[in-house]
């Protein structure tokens, strides 16, 4: 009985083993077939071999020779972004740095005094005074040197700056009977600049345009008129005079004009003077417009 039971068990084991072996083989064959079929049917993904990077030039633009529509994964260290630009579209790399103004002097009236009061460019000299105009700037001793007060030309001769930035005229452009600016203003300006140029042959002279005004605010505060028409006319002549005499004209006024060609009301408390934020706009413009 024992022998018989043992033979039956061996037969049962053999048949079970065959069934399992066959099943296993079938699974292997089907899986392989499916895998091959999948690879054949599906489109190829891009690989690193599709992207040719010129390793000889660091940060060079990446050239893709195949699979134009692919979006390759590129190591971040070789991505080259274009230089950042300012709002005016100029490259930041073209902008002068603050050090450019180390040997600069700013000359002007109350608007220019704000450069010092607001700490806009502390490395530059500011020779300016409230109320200065084209007719008193040569003679008025208003710049402190210790206990002494000197005129602006005297201050410049003492400090010998390499760059002189002038902004003047706003206080001297009252209209005349024909509606234009007073012609003597340009003559006075010319005389002042010629004096500075002859006394400071080492200096680059920048002539900055007269800033526009907000006519309504100006009239409300000062009970008189100063028009952008007059200022624009003066600036046209100032530019011509500058170019004729080899000075560098800077159209700073363009920074402060709205679509109507006037100073936006929010830039100014009284129609003519500018707020702290506008000094930053001014200096952004200066940094983008320098002589090397």
């Amino acid at each position, binding site marked *: 009985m024992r022998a018989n039971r043992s033979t039956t068990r061996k037969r049962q084991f053999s048949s079970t083993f065959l069934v399992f072996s066959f099943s296993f083989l079938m699974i292997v064959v089907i899986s392989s077939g499916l895998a091959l079929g999948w690879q054949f049917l599906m489109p190829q993904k891009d690989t690193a071999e599709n992207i040719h990077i010129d390793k000889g030039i660091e940060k060079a633009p990446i050239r893709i020779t195949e699979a134009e529509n692919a979006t390759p994964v590129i190591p971040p260290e070789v991505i080259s972004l274009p230089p950042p630009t300012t709002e005016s579209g100029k490259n930041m790399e073209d902008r002068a740095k603050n050090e450019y103004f180390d040997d600069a002097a700013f000359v002007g009236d*109350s*608007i220019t*005094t*704000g450069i*010092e*009061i*607001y*700490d806009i460019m502390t490395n530059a000299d500011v020779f300016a*005074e*409230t*109320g200065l105009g084209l007719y008193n700037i040569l003679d008025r001793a208003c710049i*402190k040197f210790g206990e002494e007060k000197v005129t602006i030309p005297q201050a410049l001769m003492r400090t010998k700056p390499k760059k002189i930035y002038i902004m003047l005229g706003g*206080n001297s452009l009252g209209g005349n009977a024909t509606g234009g600016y007073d012609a003597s203003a340009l003559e006075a300006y010319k005389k002042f600049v010629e004096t500075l140029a002859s006394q400071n042959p080492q200096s680059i002279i920048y002539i900055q345009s007269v800033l526009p005004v907000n006519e309504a605010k100006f009239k409300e*505060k*000062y009970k008189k008129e100063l028009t952008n028409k007059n200022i624009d006319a003066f600036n046209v002549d100032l530019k011509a005079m500058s170019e004729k005499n080899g000075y560098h004209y800077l159209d700073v006024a363009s920074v402060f004009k709205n679509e109507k060609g006037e100073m936006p009301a929010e830039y*100014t*408390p*009284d129609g*003519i*003077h*500018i*707020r*702290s934020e506008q000094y930053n706009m001014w200096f952004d413009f200066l940094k983008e417009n320098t002589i090397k």
Partner: protein
Amino acid sequence: MKKLLILLAGLLVFSACGGKAAPKTIDMEGFTAAAVEKLKEDDELVKLSAEKAADFYDLTFDGLGEYIIYISGTRATSDEVCIMKLADNGDAVTKAKESVNKRLTEQKADYELYIPAEFEKLNKAVVLSDGNYVVFVSGLEADVVKQLIESNKK
């Protein structure tokens, strides 16, 4: 008992009449902030650094302690707020007043022909001393300045 009560009453009278109250100090930050707040509608006032304040006000005299000075940044107005704490209420106060008046004279010269309305404001500027403090304000009425000083005493 009666003698004891008389002694106590005497002590009370002595402490009430004989003790001198310590001088009050002015919260300088509080005073200038309140004054600037009243002036800010017309102009942007800028707090001067110590170096610049010394230059604008010629602060070279002895006995000068802390000081806070705000001036017009835009120069559209002659508004100005200044308070100085001096070492004593004698010589130093006199020197501080001289310094303030010199500044006031310069401001008047700048604005007289330039903006006559601001010149008028400077003519009404407040210069006063309170103990060992000197105060100068252009742009606010004297009553307002005095009230601001009182409300910032502690």
